[in-house]
């Protein structure tokens, strides 16, 4: 029974099972991508879609496909990949299943930054002396910069706290929760003093919406996602080594402190970029890694790619359901992920045999 040939066969089967799981989900991306391209305010047939994609006879169709549908699809994929991978690696380096972009306060930091940016942008006309330096910057860029700066600031504070005070890995999540509350209080404060237009803008910004990003923003997101994904995949064996404990990982040649720090910086950077352009897309970074872990286990060689695929799928389906649920009103994907997130997450925790 346990000859080396048999052992080899068992291990090959084990790998094949996980690979098939990856392939199955990757194949699901195709119909999902087709659906997101077909759903939206204006009716498009398959034929029109293909024509819009590859020929430019009909200007309206071409515009709808290239400026609305395709950016949404690519945004969903990039956002899903970066949020879920960030969640997966943060869970690996912090050894905490609750680690995710939203639980660390990064998203809330971005929301506060955006609220501040919106307030400032509407004050530009009244105080040209103070905001003169930003005269060449459009309001949306200003809001994005504020959102990005504050989400990065959250990251810096969390990393500093953990390094200066040598806090435990559990404390990082607690620090994230505390920072989230602080930023939420700050956002509420700004909302209280905002006029109606500002209030509407602030509230609208926090709804994570995939339709928000334009091509230049998607290029930037694509670059950040590519680089961060590359770093995470190169380190997949190091993340596996962390599963055996920090000391064992270090004795296996992993620079644990450096890995944890760089991973946190890159993961939060990728999250910041996504949140800046799309708003808050809650739970994706938490659910996608958990679902993947249920399917392929904790081996990061399979967990990371599956998390990325499932993250993209979740965002695509959230966007499609947002388009269809209350048609003709299109709900932002962030509303759907938050609605879906809670029951799915509770199911994952309480439905788990091992818990």
């Amino acid at each position, binding site marked *: *029974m*346990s000859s*080396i040939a*048999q*052992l*080899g066969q*068992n*291990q090959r089967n*084990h790998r094949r099972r996980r690979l098939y799981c990856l392939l199955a989900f990757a194949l699901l991306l195709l119909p999902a991508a087709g659906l997101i391209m077909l759903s939206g305010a204006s009716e498009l047939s398959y034929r029109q879609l293909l024509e819009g994609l590859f020929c430019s006879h009909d200007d309206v169709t071409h515009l709808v496909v290239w400026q609305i549908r395709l950016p949404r699809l690519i945004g969903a994929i990039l956002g899903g990949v970066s949020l879920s991978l960030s969640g997966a690696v943060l869970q690996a380096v912090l050894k905490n299943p609750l680690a995710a972009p939203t639980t660390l306060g990064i998203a809330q930091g971005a929301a506060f930054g955006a609220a501040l940016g919106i307030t400032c942008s509407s004050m530009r006309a009244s105080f040209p002396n103070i905001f003169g330096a930003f005269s060449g910057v459009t309001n949306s860029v200003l809001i994005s910069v504020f959102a990005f700066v504050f989400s990065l600031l959250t990251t810096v504070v969390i990393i500093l706290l953990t390094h200066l005070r040598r806090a435990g890995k559990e404390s990082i999540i607690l620090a994230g929760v505390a920072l989230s509350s602080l930023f939420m209080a700050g956002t509420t404060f700004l909302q209280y003093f905002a006029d109606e237009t500002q209030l509407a803008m602030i509230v609208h910004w926090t709804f994570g919406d995939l339709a928000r990003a334009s091509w230049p923003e998607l290029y930037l997101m694509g670059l950040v996602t590519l680089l961060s994904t590359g770093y995470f995949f*190169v380190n997949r*064996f*190091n993340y*596996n*080594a962390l*599963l*055996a*404990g920090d*000391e*064992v990982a*270090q*004795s*296996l*040649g*992993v*620079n644990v402190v450096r890995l944890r720090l760089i991973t946190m910086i890159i993961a939060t950077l990728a999250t910041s970029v996504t949140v800046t352009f799309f708003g808050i897309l809650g739970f994706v970074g938490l659910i996608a890694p958990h679902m993947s*872990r249920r399917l392929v*286990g*904790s*081996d990061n*060689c399979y967990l990371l790619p599956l998390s990325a695929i499932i993250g993209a799928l979740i965002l695509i389906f959230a966007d499609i359901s947002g388009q269809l649920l209350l048609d003709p009103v299109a709900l932002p994907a962030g509303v759907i992920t938050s609605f879906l997130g809670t029951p799915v997450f509770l199911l994952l925790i309480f439905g788990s045999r*091992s818990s």
Partner: protein
Amino acid sequence: MGVEFKQLSFTYGKQQILDEISCNLRPGCLHAVLGVNGAGKSTLIKLLAGLLYPTSGAILLGEEHLEKLSLNQRAHRIAYVPQQQHVSDLIVFDYLLLGRKPHRCWRSVHEDDTRVFAMLKKLDLSHLSQRPLHQLSGGELQKIALARAFIQEPKVLLLDEPTSSLDLKNQLEVMEIIAEETSARNLTTIITVHDVNLALRFAEHFILMKDRNILVAGGLEVMTAPHLSQLYKLPLQLYFHEGRLQVTPS
């Protein structure tokens, strides 16, 4: 590869844990570090593993200074197994592949698999290969952790209380594996152990640690009733039973 530490000191905050200890450890020999709780045994193991940095003194692996080696160079020479193993849902085979980490670039190769298969077979653990770590018993987990260390192909093996949470049968099995592999691979093995009889049965060299210092170190000749009584602050007596030296409280 011999291990030598000279004038090794370690302080944690203001507390001195080790005070200028020196010793020479030779390859192919099982060294047992004995002492009461808090004597600095685990600290010594972690210093030798490069997980802690000495306040002063030097550690030599053969001719090389430990501090001058990179993390990966250390991982080629030293394997470390902590007292408590972290469990996860990683299956045994994938966990054992971690032992090949220092030897490979960025992907797993067929040769790595072969080494893992061979080690599973050698330690008669093949039936566990597809089991998740969290389903293993304490004894199985300890053997798998040892297998991971052997797969790392080190020259020096550092084990922090490898038998502390095991039943009698597993204690003997684990110690037999350690002793066999030590001589077969010509390893410099250093273990911390509380069970003096287990040390007497398997180890060839003993380091008795007391009050931040080495009380005495050497072969079986240092395992005398006065030394052990002084070490454990307890009157102990030694006797031969079926050709083996044994110790009991008198």
